[in-house]
């Protein structure tokens, strides 16, 4: 299944992209998706302090990612 991954701030710098299309084998939890990302992008190994949003809403580790979701990696925010 295909999903879109959006990257921001320092996470975009670490991965070197602002957005990616990823093909996942199956529906997956946010927790497992984070492990998958760390194996695919070892530069994330030392950077785990990001939150995850699914379709523009914050998601916890147990939330499920399904086909066509838009996932965003949200490093600590610093607006204002």
């Amino acid at each position: 299944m295909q999903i879109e991954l959006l990257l921001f701030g320092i996470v975009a710098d670490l991965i070197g992209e602002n957005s990616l299309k990823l093909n996942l084998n199956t529906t997956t939890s946010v927790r497992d998706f984070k492990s998958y990302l760390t194996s695919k992008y070892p530069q994330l190994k030392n950077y785990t302090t990001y939150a995850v949003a699914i379709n523009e809403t914050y998601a916890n580790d147990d939330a499920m990612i399904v086909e066509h979701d838009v996932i965003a990696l949200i490093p600590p925010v610093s607006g204002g």
Partner: protein
Amino acid sequence: MNNISIKLSTEKLSLKECYDFVDNPTCGGIDIFVGTVRNHTKGKSVKKLDFSAYGPMAVKEMQLIAEKVLEKFDVLKIAIHHAEGMLQIGDIPVIIAVSAAHRVAAFEACQFAIDTLKETVPIWKKEHFEDGEVWVNAHP
């Protein structure tokens, strides 16, 4: 009646627009927080700040904060406006305006709104120094 004004903009923010939005004959006070770009951080001289946002989600999160403010505090109207793009020293990245019948609720609501914005709204600032640049708060 619409009591909420949310804006994420690459244009210069307008204090007057926020004030005029929240102004109301039934209010007895208006509290406005204005964030400004500071020329130093941790002893280093800052040249400019670059704000980037996850636009659609940032707008949603600001809307959620505004709704929570109206529910939690005895206030009438709220405007939350945030800028994105490159800002210079003294420029305004954020304005929060709240009107209320009485001042205490207006102060409290305004503080709650800016504190929550800084925790939840997906906007990031990059500080530009003479000798480089850094994402603020990236390693908390």
